């Protein structure tokens, strides 16, 4: 019996790896075909991506990008584990980053304290914004998909209104850029100098801590078990004594709080202010990355790195004479392939398991009847 369980485990591991590998191979094939269709040779393109992507300055760039994407992926994944589709991560992080930047610009405190306050402000803003959708869902039955999409637009409007000279922003660089007051240098997060390759953002450590916390809370705590129960079956969760409504609001709040962190690597390690060109749309990237990583903390990290890698290398492809739209094609195809591949592998695994259980029971039954015949 022990032997069998270990075999199932090995098989599960194999199946777990099979899906993403299958997806990426399929995506490569489709991308190659697309490049061929544009009349260019895909071979050198892939070659260029590899050599350029693994250059040391690219590595630092990819890690920095992946830090942001990882936080976005985790934020979305928290909702996914609950069967909640938090599309509002995008609005949550932008609003959070904006208010955190405003607060940071106004602070004159010792460095570590102002960093802490900025982080708390960002998480609280994200959590509050997400909580609106959660409360609407449990009190009025509003689908979180609809409400978060609308909250995204509202967030955009709020930021546009407040990000004006004389409101919460000021003109900078000779009147060409509107931005919040820059953070005092004491409130900058630490970076690691890697020489000519550039600076590695210190926020990557925060991302790692968030990943570990995500794994621990979901997999090892009672709260996480309840959350996963609701995600798998609301009716079973209710019968088991979980308050589904409370759980929906709580998980939206946590998802929003993590979303609040998404803008922080950029704010605290790079731009030090919130301007009209603050990166937008990362919430949607987070959805793709959470799908890619199967809501698994390590999987999300790999997804985030892959995303950073693709962005870096396809940018460079443009200079080699390829179309820059290749990036969108590759990303879209990967997400599609991943979703399909996971479903195919999941069904296959389930069928295998049922067959195994059946075979095992038949063997047991045969054994007992034989024994009876002998006796």
């Amino acid at each position, binding site marked *: *019996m022990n032997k*069998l*369980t270990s075999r*199932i*485990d090995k098989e599960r591991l194999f199946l777990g790896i099979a899906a993403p590998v299958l997806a990426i191979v399929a995506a490569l094939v489709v991308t190659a075909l697309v490049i061929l269709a544009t009349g260019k040779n895909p071979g050198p393109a892939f070659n260029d991506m590899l050599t350029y992507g693994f250059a040391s300055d690219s590595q630092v760039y990819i890690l920095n990008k992946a830090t942001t994407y990882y936080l976005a992926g985790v934020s979305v994944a928290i909702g996914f584990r609950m069967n909640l589709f938090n599309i509002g991560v995008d609005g949550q992080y932008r609003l959070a980053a904006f208010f955190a930047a405003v607060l940071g610009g106004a602070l004159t405190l010792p460095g570590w304290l102002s960093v802490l306050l900025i982080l708390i402000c960002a998480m609280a803003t994200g959590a509050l914004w997400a909580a609106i959708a959660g409360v609407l869902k449990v009190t009025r039955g509003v689908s979180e998909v609809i409400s978060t999409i609308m909250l995204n637009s509202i967030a955009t409007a709020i930021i546009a209104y407040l990000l004006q000279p004389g409101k919460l922003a000021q003109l900078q660089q000779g009147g060409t850029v509107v931005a919040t007051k820059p953070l005092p240098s004491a409130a900058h997060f630490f970076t690691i100098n890697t020489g000519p390759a550039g600076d590695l953002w210190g926020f990557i450590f925060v991302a790692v801590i968030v990943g570990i916390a995500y794994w621990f809370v979901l*997999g*090892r*705590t*009672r*709260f*996480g*078990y*309840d959350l*996963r*129960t609701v995600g*798998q*079956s609301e*009716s*079973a969760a*209710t*019968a*088991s*004594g*979980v*308050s589904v409504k409370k759980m929906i609001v709580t998980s939206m709040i946590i998802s929003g709080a993590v979303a609040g962190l998404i803008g922080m690597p950029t704010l605290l390690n790079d731009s030090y202010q919130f301007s009209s060109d603050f990166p937008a749309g990362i919430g949607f990237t987070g959805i793709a990355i959470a799908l890619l990583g199967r809501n698994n903390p390590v999987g999300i990290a790999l997804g985030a790195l892959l995303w950073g890698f693709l962005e870096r290398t396809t940018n460079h492809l443009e200079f080699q004479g390829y179309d820059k739209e290749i990036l969108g094609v590759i990303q879209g195809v990967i997400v599609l392939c991943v979703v399909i591949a996971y479903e195919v592998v999941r069904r296959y695994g*389930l069928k295998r*398991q*049922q*067959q*195994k*259980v*059946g075979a*095992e*029971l*038949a063997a*047991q*039954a045969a054994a007992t009847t034989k024994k009876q015949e002998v006796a």
Partner: protein
Amino acid sequence: MKILYGMQQPDEGTITVNGEQVVFHNPGDAIARGIGMVHQHFMLADNLTVLENVVLGAEKLYGIGGKARAKIKEISDAYHLNVRPDVLVEELGVADRQRVEILKVLYRGAKTLILDEPTAVLVPQEVDALFDNLRELKAEGLTVIFISHKLGEVLSVADEITVIRRGTTVGTAEPSRTTPKQLAEMMVGSELPTPETAESTVTDVPMLKVEGLHLAQTDLDGIERIILDEISFTIHKGEVLGIAGVEGNGQSELVEAIMGMRHPDAGVITLDAADISHAATRRRREAGIGYIPEDRHRHGLLLEAPLWENRILGHVTEKPNSRGGLIDIKAARADTERIVQEYDVRTPGIDVTAASLSGGNQQKLIVGREMSHNPKLLIAAHPTRGVDVGAQAAIWDYIREARREGLAVLLISADLDELIGLSDTLRVMYRGRLVADADPATITPEELGSAMTGAATGHLEHTEDDER
């Protein structure tokens, strides 16, 4: 059965219809070959009329208007199904719905009918009516495959019986030359279990007291319907209280009210002298309520989670599943192994998903889990529905054992033999009220059945002129 209807593909073997070997890829293929299935759980849209339900998905056959209505009339008359095409399905009783399901299948031109546990939801009188319908169908040259756990019914209606156990054909029998006992022995592979309990273990210590429970619900049309009406009863330690009734008369709501999943408008629930009327479900579980839900897939299991995670379900705050706020995976796994051993859950391991176990083994896992937390009260709603005879016997044993150990048991079932065999006290529920009580020692299923349709109330005595 699923394979016959094209819902699943076989690994090997062949299906022959009318001497022709066929392969079904989906239910459409099966329907095209004249195979129709009446599911255990009805597949009808409540807010549509009978006519609309019947033509749904088969609009191409006779359209959706007068021609379809004429065809429905024709089939209904031919087999005496008495179906009225323009009534909303939500206004129909269970037996009528079942006839609509049969008609739906015939409308699609089925020559072979598969009926999956058709009598599980019917009272004895309705079962007889169904059997009359089936004999009509047979007389018209149709083939009927009748799947049931109930031996008496199979013997009375079938021309040939095939016994399947653990996925293989154990044997075939002719009803005229077989007794229920022989048939049951083929099914279990050993002696026939009966649901009878030994001498009474009822004490006079009340364990669960329900007083004046009232629940009303406003439906979509704004009409207030009373679902539970002045429900009061007491279950003592060591007592099994059985509640009989046709499904949909408030039994599920009663259970959910006791579990705290529904909030009654009035009434007091007392467990072991503590008022739990307003406690949360989790508090009630911790206070010692074990719960075997009527729909284990919806309320009792996480189908895609491994067995050991299912072992935690509903008892996440209790030992050995957690310590402090943390899940104790090692202890939970070890305890799952124990349950699998003690309760004879047939599985290759505790890492397989709950969905891959058979119904009986899923149910044994649930019973084992609920009994592992020293419950004071066990709520068993249809505990042996859809499980094989072997598991059924085991589950009856566990309920008896629970009773012997001084638990109070609330047993809700549609299987009247089970109710009569296991209960110390019997109540009949009809339209949200407890309308009758009976002594399980003397009552017969037929007498209970008439009370379940509202024909008899008060204390049921086993007398000849019981019908009144």
